[in-house]
C-alpha cells in the first residue's frame, strides 16, 4: 500500500444501510465511514439501532437496503466468517472465555497454531505462548499467559477477549459497550488499551452509553436516533450536553442530582455479622426511605452481599432482620418479606429468553394477575404490561414480542418493570443502569427517588461512582469482602475518599 494514501483513508464505509425485522424498519439509510487510525463512536438511546448496525457490519445480519464498502471496494457478507476474513472483528459485550483454559489457549481458541512433528500436525504451544505474550505486551498489559481464565477479573477478561481479536490482525475492531460494569480503574485501563490500538493504525468503532468516556476517546461521533443517523460530529465540536440533545431530539434532560432525603429514623433492614465464603463480618443498617449505595471494585464482594441477602449464597453465620423480624434468606422468602432484587447479569440471571416481554415482567408477582390464586387472567396481565411498556418507554412491538429481540437496554428495563410491579419494601439493585442510555438512566434515578418518597428503601450496588454519588443518602465501601468505611456523598472530598477506600486505603492523588 503506497504511503501517500496516508493514515486517514477510509477503511470501512456504509452507504444507505438499512434493516427490517417483520416489516418494521429498525435501521434506515445509514451513511457511515470509518478511517484508519480512528476511534469512531456510536451513541444513541436504547433501541436506536447501534447493535443492529454493527451486527450488519460483522455479518450477523444481512442488510435489507444499502451496501458496505471495505477499502473502497463493495463487499457482501453472507456470514460472520465473511466479515472476519475481510478484516473486521467484534469484541462482544458478553465475555466468552472457556473457564478452565489458560489465557493463551483462549486467545487462540479455534485458530490454533500448528507445526509438524514427525510428519504429524500438532498444536504449537510455544509459538502461541510467545505470540500471546507479544500481543499482551503491545497493549501494555502485564498478564501471565498460563493463567486459567476463571481466575481473571472483569477487565482482564475483556483484555483477553481483545487479544483473541488482535491475533487475527484485524483492520477494523468493533467494541459493543465494552466498559459496562467495569470498575473505575479497569475502565480507564481499557480505554488506554483502545487508544493504543488506534496508534497501530486500526480503525475502531466504539459503542458506549457513558458520554464522558465517548467524548474523551473519540475522533468522531455518530449519533443515532430511532434507527436513523442524526449526524456525525468531530471531537472538537462534541460535548456530552450537545450529544444528549442530538440523541434525544425534543425530549428533555436534566442532570439528575438527589435533592432531598426521604430517610426517616426507622430501621427496616438490619444485617449483623454476615459471613459467607466471600464475605467477612458484614454489618449495616438500612433506614426507611433511604437509598444506600455500595461501592467497590469488581470482585470486592458487592454482588455477594446482594446474593446473601436474597438467599442465593449460603450464609455461614450472621443474622438478618427485616422490620425487626428475623429473616432466613431464600429467594422465595425474600419476595414474601418484601425484598426485590435486580441482578447484575441480565441475560444469565434476569431473563427467560424464550418468553415474551409480558411473561418476563409478570414472572415474580404472577399471583397478582391470578384468579383464585392460580388461574392467570391474561387480560389484566396484558393491561398491566402495557402500562409499564409506556411508563418506562420500553421499545418493543408489544407485550407478546419475545424478549430476545429487544435491545440490551430495553431488556434491562423489563427486569426493572418486573419488580416495580410488586409491593416490595426494600429494593436491591445490582448495576441497575447497566447498558441504559442517559435519559432512561435519569428516569430510573427519579424512580428510585419516588420509591424512597413512598417509604421504600433501596440498596444500589454500582461500580460507577458518579451514579452512587448522585442518588444515594449514604455509601458503604467494600474491599475484599469487608465493609471498610461509610461515606456521605455530600461530605467534602467524598469521591476521593471512596476511591481510596475501594482500593484498600491507597492514597489517590
Amino acid at each position: 500500500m503506497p504511503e501517500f494514501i496516508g493514515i486517514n483513508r477510509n477503511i470501512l464505509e456504509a452507504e444507505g444501510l438499512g434493516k427490517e425485522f417483520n416489516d418494521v424498519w429498525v435501521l434506515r439509510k445509514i451513511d457511515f465511514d470509518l478511517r484508519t487510525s480512528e476511534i469512531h463512536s456510536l451513541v444513541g438511546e436504547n433501541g436506536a439501532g447501534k447493535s443492529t448496525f454493527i451486527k450488519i457490519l460483522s455479518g450477523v445480519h444481512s442488510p435489507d437496503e444499502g451496501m458496505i464498502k471495505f477499502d473502497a471496494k463493495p463487499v457482501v457478507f453472507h456470514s460472520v466468517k465473511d466479515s472476519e476474513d475481510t478484516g473486521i472483528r467484534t469484541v462482544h459485550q458478553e465475555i466468552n472465555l472457556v473457564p478452565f483454559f489458560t489465557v493463551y489457549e483462549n486467545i487462540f481458541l479455534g485458530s490454533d497454531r500448528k507445526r509438524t512433528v514427525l510428519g504429524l500436525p500438532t498444536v504449537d504451544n510455544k509459538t502461541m505462548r510467545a505470540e500471546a505474550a507479544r500481543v499482551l505486551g503491545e497493549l501494555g498489559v502485564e498478564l501471565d499467559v498460563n493463567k486459567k481464565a476463571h481466575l481473571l477479573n472483569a477487565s482482564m477478561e475483556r483484555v483477553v477477549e481483545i487479544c483473541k481479536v488482535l491475533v487475527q490482525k484485524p483492520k477494523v475492531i468493533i467494541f459493543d459497550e465494552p466498559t459496562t460494569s467495569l470498575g473505575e480503574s479497569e475502565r480507564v485501563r481499557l480505554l488506554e488499551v483502545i487508544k493504543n490500538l488506534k496508534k497501530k493504525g486500526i480503525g475502531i468503532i466504539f459503542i458506549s452509553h457513558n458520554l464522558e468516556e465517548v467524548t474523551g476517546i473519540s475522533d468522531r461521533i455518530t449519533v443515532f436516533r430511532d434507527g436513523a443517523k442524526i449526524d456525525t460530529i468531530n471531537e472538537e465540536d462534541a460535548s456530552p450536553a450537545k450529544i444528549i440533545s442530538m440523541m434525544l431530539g425534543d425530549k428533555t434532560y436534566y442532570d439528575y442530582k438527589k435533592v432531598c432525603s426521604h430517610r426517616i429514623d426507622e430501621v427496616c433492614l438490619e444485617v449483623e455479622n454476615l459471613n459467607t465464603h466471600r464475605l467477612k463480618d458484614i454489618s449495616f443498617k438500612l433506614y426507611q426511605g433511604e437509598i444506600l449505595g455500595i461501592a467497590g471494585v469488581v470482585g470486592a464482594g458487592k454482588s455477594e452481599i446482594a446474593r446473601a441477602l436474597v438467599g442465593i449464597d449460603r450464609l455461614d453465620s450472621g443474622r438478618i432482620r427485616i422490620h425487626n423480624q428475623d429473616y432466613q434468606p431464600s429467594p422465595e422468602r425474600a419476595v414474601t418479606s418484601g425484598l426485590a432484587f435486580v441482578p447484575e447479569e441480565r441475560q444469565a440471571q434476569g431473563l427467560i429468553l424464550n418468553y415474551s416481554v409480558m411473561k418476563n415482567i409478570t414472572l415474580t408477582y404472577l399471583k397478582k394477575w391470578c384468579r383464585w390464586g392460580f388461574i392467570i387472567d391474561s387480560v389484566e396481565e396484558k393491561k398491566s404490561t402495557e402500562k409499564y411498556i409506556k411508563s418506562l418507554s420500553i421499545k418493543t412491538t408489544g407485550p407478546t414480542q419475545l424478549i430476545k429481540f429487544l435491545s440490551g437496554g430495553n431488556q434491562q428495563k423489563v427486569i426493572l418493570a418486573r419488580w416495580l410491579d410488586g409491593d416490595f419494601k426494600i429494593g436491591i439493585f445490582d448495576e441497575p443502569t447497566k447498558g441504559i442510555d442517559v435519559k432512561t438512566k435519569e428516569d430510573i434515578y427519579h424512580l428510585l427517588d419516588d420509591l424512597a418518597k413512598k417509604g421504600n428503601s433501596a440498596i444500589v450496588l454500582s461500580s460507577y461512582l458518579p451514579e452512587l454519588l448522585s442518588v444515594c443518602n449514604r455509601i458503604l465501601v467494600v474491599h475484599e469482602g469487608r465493609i471498610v468505611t461509610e461515606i456521605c456523598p455530600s461530605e467534602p472530598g467524598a469521591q476521593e475518599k471512596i476511591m481510596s477506600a475501594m482500593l484498600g486505603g491507597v492514597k489517590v492523588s
Partner: protein
Amino acid sequence: MKIALFNNRNDLREFIRKYGTVIGALILFIVFSLIIERFLTASNILMLLRQMSMLTIIALGFNFVMGAGGFDMSIGSACGLIAMVFALTLLGTGSLLLALSAALLCGLLVGLINGMLVAYIGLPDFIATFAVGSIIYGVKMLMTRGNPVSYPSDISPVFAFIGRGFVGPFPFPVIIMFFIFILTVFVLYRTSFGRRVYAIGGNPVASLYAGINIKKYRLATFVISGLSVALASIILTSRLGSAQPLAGEEFLLDVIAVVFLSTTMFGEGEPTPSGTFIGALIISMLNNGLTMLNVPYYFQFITKGSVVIVAVLLAVTLGQKLRIKFL
C-alpha cells in the same frame, strides 16, 4: 404454488421446522390408509386411540418434567410396580377404592423419591431416575418372583370398565386421555404453576433470582409424572385383566420418542401438550400399522428409532441455521 406461499427459502425452512413433524404424521396416516385395507375404519381408529391413551397420559406427565428442564427414566419400571401394588391391594382387600388409592399413592411416592433426589439433593436427573427405575425393577421382581398377579374376573365390574368400557362409541380410556390432555393444556398455559415450570426450563438461574422456589416446582413435576404413570398403569391392568410385573416396561422407549418428537414440533424447543399428542399418535400409528402389516415386532423398534433420529435431525439442522441467524 410454493412461490406464492413462501417469500423466500427462510420462510419455507421456518415452516418445515415448525410443522415438519405434523406433516410427517399426516403423511404416515395417508400412507397407512392407502396400503392397509382396514386401517381407515372407525373401529380401527378407535382402537388406535385406545392403544395410544396410556402412552399419551404418561408422556403428558413427562411433559411437565421436561418442561422444567428435567428427565425421568423411571417411568417404565414404575408402571409395572404400580400395577403389582394395585393388584395385590385389590386381592387383599377386595376394595377397588383402596386399590386405586394405593396405586396413586405408589406413583406419588416414586415421584417424590425422584424429585427429592434430583431437586433437593441435586443428583443429575438421568442418573438418579435411572437408578430409581433399576431399584424398582428389583423390588417388583422380589415381590412376585416375576409372576403375574391374577384375580377373579368378577372382582369388580367398575374396575373392568376403566380399561375396557365404552361411553357411547368411545372407549373409556380415550375419554380419560382427552380429559388429561385438556387438563395438561390448562395447567401448563393458564396457571401460574405452568408458567413457572416452563420458566424454570427456560432459565433456572433467572427463575431462582426472580424468587421462584425452583426445588419445589421441580419436585412437583416429578410427582405429576409419577401420578400419570399410576393412572396409565391402572388402565393397563384393567385392560390386561391381570397385573404383569413387566407390563409397561416398553413405555420408557416410546415415551422418550414421543417427547423428543414433541420438542421438535412448532419450533419451540420445548415439549408442548399438542406436540406430545401428535408424537404419541405417530408412535402409536407405527405400532398399529406395522402390526397390521405383519411386520415382525423387532422391526418396529428399528422404525421408531429411525423416525426419532430423522425428526430430531431435521429440527436441529434447520433450527441451528436459524439460531445463528438470530445471534
